[in-house]
Structure formats: structure tokens, C-alpha cells
């Protein structure tokens, strides 16, 4: 494990949303590495242990849940915090690995900031799904 904190791995296939999240993440002093697919994300993660994974679920190829499972099954990466960002408001079945944050698209800036604050300041949100509907039901 390297001594310096790893990058934030941003996994999102939609270019505009990826840019939007990158803009949001610019507030924290982390390098942001982007991946448009699950496979690429896993490759990057195994190469550079990320400080945080921001993970979209609906991805081309393997989906976000599968990426999450593989991360959790890798001993090196098992404890990397993960924030799921999805249009799916259902966190899924019980057997899915716990995540440290949950953002439902479309999300508000305030919510995104709060979640990233908690995780990138060193703590986690203890796996409580945090969805954002303040933009409307």
C-alpha cells in the first residue's frame, strides 16, 4: 500500500454526468481518475488503489454491482469506500455488499458535497444509503 492517498475513481459511462461529478469533486484535493466502463475501472483500481470509488450502476459490459462485488472480493481493495451513483433508487438485494454512500440521480449539489465531505475527510457514512430527492419526488 502506498503512503500517499490514492485518487478518486469516477466510474460513469455518461460523459456529461462524469464531467458534472468531476466538477463537484474538484472541491477536494484528490486526483480524479475516470473510467467509462466497469472493466476499465477494475483495471485502474487494481493498478492504483483509489481513496474513493464513485460508481455508476448501469454501465456497458459488467454493471456497477458486479464491479462492487469484485472490488469487495479483492483483499487489496475490499475496504475502499464506494459511493453508488445511480438512477436506480433501489439499493438492490440484501446480499449486495454494503456501500459507503448512495446518490440517486438526479442529485443536488448539497447532497453530493455532504457525502463526499464525509468520505474524503477520512470518515465514512457507515453504509447508510443516502439518496437525494430534494430536487422533487
Amino acid at each position, binding site marked *: 500500500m502506498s503512503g500517499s492517498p490514492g485518487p478518486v475513481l469516477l466510474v460513469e459511462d455518461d460523459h456529461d454526468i462524469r464531467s458534472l461529478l468531476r466538477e463537484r469533486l474538484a472541491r477536494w484535493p484528490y486526483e480524479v481518475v475516470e473510467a467509462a466502463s466497469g472493466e476499465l475501472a477494475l483495471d485502474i483500481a487494481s493498478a492504483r488503489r483509489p481513496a474513493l470509488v464513485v460508481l455508476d450502476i448501469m454501465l456497458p459490459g459488467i454493471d456497477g454491482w458486479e464491479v462492487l462485488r469484485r472490488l469487495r472480493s479483492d483483499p487489496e481493495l475490499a475496504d475502499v469506500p464506494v459511493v453508488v451513483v445511480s438512477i436506480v433508487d433501489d439499493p438492490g438485494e440484501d446480499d449486495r455488499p454494503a456501500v459507503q454512500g448512495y446518490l440517486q440521480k*438526479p442529485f443536488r*449539489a448539497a447532497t453530493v458535497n455532504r457525502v463526499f465531505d464525509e468520505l474524503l475527510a477520512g470518515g465514512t457514512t457507515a453504509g447508510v444509503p443516502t439518496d437525494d430527492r430534494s430536487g422533487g*419526488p
Partner: protein
Amino acid sequence: VRLDVARVRGQFASWWWDLSLRWKGLIVGSLPLVAMIPAIVVALWLSTSQEASRADARETLAAAAGSVTLQRHLVQLERAAVAGALPVAGPSTALDEVQASVERDIGSLRAAASRAASAPALASVEALLSAVDRLAGSASSDGATVGPALAEVQRRSAEVADRFTTLDRALASELASALDETAARRRQIVIVLAAGGVLAVVLGWLAMWLFTRGIVRRVQTVGEVTARVIDGETSIDVEEPGGDELGELVRELRRAAELLILHNAELEVSRDAERAVVEREQTIREVVRRVHQAVGQHDVLDATVREVAAATGSDGAFILGVEGGVAHDVLAEWTADGVPGLGVGSSLPVDAQRDANFGLLLQQWHALVIDDVVSTGFLPQTREILGELQVGSMILAPVLGEDEPLAVLVMVTSGRARPWPPGSDRLAEVVAAHVATALTHARLYEREREMVQRLRELDEAKSDFVASVSHELRTPLTSIRGYAEMLGDGDAGELTSDQGRMLEIVQRNADRLLSLIENLLTLSRIESGAFRVARVPVALDDVVRATLDELRPQAAAAGVVLEADVTGCIPAVLGDRAQLERVLFNLLSNAIKFTVDGGRVTVRLRASDDGVEMSVADRGIGIPAAELDRLFGRFFRSSISQQRAIQGTGLGLMIVKSIVEHHEGDISVESEEHVGTTFTIRLPAAPATVSVA
């Protein structure tokens, strides 16, 4: 001789058997009288001989009396003579008297003497008679001879007296014996009569006893026979009953029994026939029931051939599809083990299809029983097929559609022709009729099912489409809202007030679009049954506050005042906060939409007996009463909102109701046109043990 006795006895017996009971009774009753007759005859005879003895005794007594009279006269005569009173001239009175007495009594004296067989007495009487004559003669002539004549008379008289003394003694003894004899006769008569009476009584009793016993036995036999007949015994063999009334009765009974047996047999036959009919009907019903249990067309046809073959003992059963009046393919078949079949789906050879005779058979509107296919005029091609199938006998029943045969039900026996069980043709007809119905239904059902399947697929496709479109719409909305927010935050530099106003419009409409998408998504979940709500404690006052905050910009834009009326301690409810917010959001945005500028919308929250009551009241346009019951339906839009062109999808209230119901709550509405509308939601409180997370 013995044979004769036996024959006589037999003759008597048969005579006696044939004698009527009346005569038998008469005979038996008169038997004591008959027994008395000999006794009476003997008694009469005895009494006759007693009478003779009595006459003898009377005669003897008369003779004795005569003798005594004579002697008295003689004594008088002697006494007169001795006294010299006997006149000399002319016959004296005494003499006359003697003479008259002698003449008068001489008869009885003679009789007595003769009866006593006493010749000396008779001679003495004759001598006395002549002595008296002489005395009379001498008395009339002179007196000289009177003396000797009298002496003669006296002597003769003494002689007669002696004789009669002896005779009297004999008569006395004779009388005594005659009396003895009379007494003896009387005793005999009594004995004979008594014996005859006893005999008659005994005989009569015996005869009566025998007669009664015979009758009782035969009556018992009649009773037993009757009982056996009643018990249903079919062969009544009783001995020859005789010709009397009882015999007649037995004969009548036997005839009745025979009639009864005959009747019973007929009844049994008709009952058998009836039972057979009932069984047949039952079989038909059973077959029909099983056929009806099948649902798909193939199941119906398979069930039919199987059941109909089982019910009639066929070796094979087929349903041939009929088109244009010809049987052309095999829709279903069942064959017993070892019996060849045609193969379901196979077509009949064209020649057989065109067999005019076969076609003619198909055009019959009732079942046809062909006991022997060989003698039926099929074309060689048809016969060839039948030969291949080893068909012996055949029943064909048309499966009739509305105006033409849909199919034909064929039942066959394999090998030798053999007769069909009775009623097989009717069974085939009824089953075929039901098959027609079932086939029509099955076809309709299958068509219906296909249609339902298509509709379901279509609906699923639509739901999938809605879901995926909703999801897909969220992605661009994320960018729109995200970047709009960044613009608003000044991330791209400060905005002018016009830019800010325009950006706010963009954001408001993005929110509206999002709400719409959420509603569509929820609807598709509700319809696909995938809609679920979380069950965590939710504080409704928080929900009210958050939702009101959220809608304030919208309300402000519409010039509507939103107010909350939350009083007292509101218990938590178990549910899904996001969904409950959506409920309130939908109700409030409706209320805002339908309230005129300057109006007021109130959210009221109260604790109720068993939960929470939340209401949203507006002073809006209201809902026509006639439309209230359709209010919570899908795509409902009130006529007023349509008239006023108020926007809406007509999904909001349906979703509200569904969410409330998923929370085990209920929703009601009160509305008056042009006055306003109040929606009231009641939700059960969460159990006291859980606290709001």
C-alpha cells in the same frame, strides 16, 4: 287285496281332498249322529221285544184273571147246588151266570191253557164246559138228573180249579220271568244308548280333531307359501292341494305367486334396462365431464378419444378433422396396445378423403353404427386404410359446428367385427356434441389466450418501455439539473437577474419533468406488481415541513399561500419517507394547480385514535360529484381541469391511493364544485416500541 285296499284308500283320499269344506264339515259334524244310529236301532229292537214280553205278561194276567172269575162262579154254583137252591125247573140264575162266565172266559182260558201248553187244562175246561151244558140240560128237563149233572160239574170244576191252580202257578212264574225280562231289556237299552253316545262323542271329537288339524296344517302351509312368495322365492312347489276351498285358495295363491314372479321378472328386466340406461347416462356424463376438464384443444381431443374408447370398449378412437365435407387429417387418436394407429397430424390419403361413401357418412347429422366395415360400400382405398388399421366395426359421430361438421369422432374395434355395446351410438353422439362445444370453446379459449398473451406482452413491453424511458430520462435530467445548479451557484460567473430568472424557470421545469418521470415510473411499478415501500418509522411532521418547503416556489409562482396546521404530538408511522413525501407532494401540487390566485392551501396533521390523520384542503374549483368515484382511477382528469386546460397526467391521485394503501392506510375525498376539495389520509401509527430513525 292289499293293492286294492291301497287303491280304495287312494280313491277315498282323492275323493276326500276334492270334497268341499262345507261337505267335509257336514260329514265330520254328522259323524256322531251316524255313530248313534246302530245304538238307536238296537235300542228300538230291544224295546220292541220288551213290548212282546209285556204283552205276554198281560195275556197271562188276563188268563189268570179269567181263571179266578171262573172259579168264583163255580164256587157260587157249588154253593147254590149244595144249598139246594138250585131250582129244578128252569135254569137258575147261578147256572146261567156260570154258563155265561164259562163262555166269556173260556177264550182266555183256552188261550192261557194253550199258551201254557197245558193240554190237560184245556181238556178240563172243555169237560167242564160240557158238564155245565149237561147240567143245564138236566135242569131244564127234570130234576132227577140234576144231581149227577151237578156232581159232574162240581167234579169238573174242581178239576179245572186244580188244573188252573197249577196253571196259575205256572202263569205266575211266567209273569215273573216276563217282568224280569222287561227290566233286563230296559237295562240293555240304556247300556246300548250310553255306549252309542260315548262312541259318537269320541268319534265326533276324533273326527273334528283330525279335520281341524288337517285344515290348520294346510292353512299353515298356505301361510308359509304366502310368506315365501312375499320373500320373493321364485319357485313355489306345493303338493297337490285338493279340490276344496283351501285347495282353491292354494291354487289361486300359486297363480298369484306365478304372476308375481313373472311380474317381478318383468320388473327386474325393466329395472335392468333402466339401470343400463342410467349407467349409460352416467358413463356419458363422466366422459363429458372428463372431456370438459381438459382446457386446451389438444387436451380436449386427447381426453375425448381416450374416454370414449374406454367407455365403449373400443380398440381405437380417432378424431378426424373435417374440412369442406371431407375428413383429411388426424386430430387425435387413441389405440389399445398392439392396435395400429394413423398418427396424430397425419393426413388421410387423398383417395380416402374423396371417398364419396365416406363423405356421405360424414354428412349424416347423427352417429352411424357400422357393424361390419367389409360389407359397407367403401372405395378400395378407404377399405385399404381400414384394413391396415384392422378395423372390424366402426361408429362414426359427426362433431358439428354451427353449420358444418368440424370433425368426426370414429370408434373402431380391431380384428373381427363385433357388435357394439347398446347405447354406444348415443354415447358417441352426445360426446361428439360436447366435443363440438368444447372444441369451439377451446378454439375460442386458445384465441383468447393468445390474445391475452399478446396483450400481456404488449403491456409488459409498455411497462418496460416506460421504466426504461423513465430511467433514460433521468440521465439527461441529471446533467440539466446539475449544470443549472452550477450556473445558479455562480460556478460559471455571476448571473444577471434576467439570467437568474430564466435559469429558475429552467430548474422549475426540470423539477416538473422529474416529478412526471417519477410518477410514470411508480405507475409502471404498481402495474407490474413490483411496487414496494420501505417499513421504517417516519415522522410525518418532518414530511409536511420538507414537502411544503419544496413546493413553496411553485406555490409562490401561482400566488397561492401554503400553510401547515400541525398540532399536538404526532406519532410516527411505519413506512417509506420518500413515498409519503410523494403522496403529499402530489396532493399539494394538485391543490396549488386548482386554486386560484390569492387562494390558500392548508395541510392539517393530527393524531387520531389509532394513528395519524393528514388532510390537504384547498378552496379551489372542486370536483363534480359525478366524477368523485373515478377520482383515483388511472388517467383521471376532471372535466373542469380539461375545460380550463390545467396540465396533468391523471396519474397523481392513483399513485397517491396506491402508496397509501401500501401503508395500510386509506384516503377519502370531500369536494364541492367551486367551493373546494379536501383529501384526508389516515395512516396507522407505528408500534410504540420503535422510534424514528
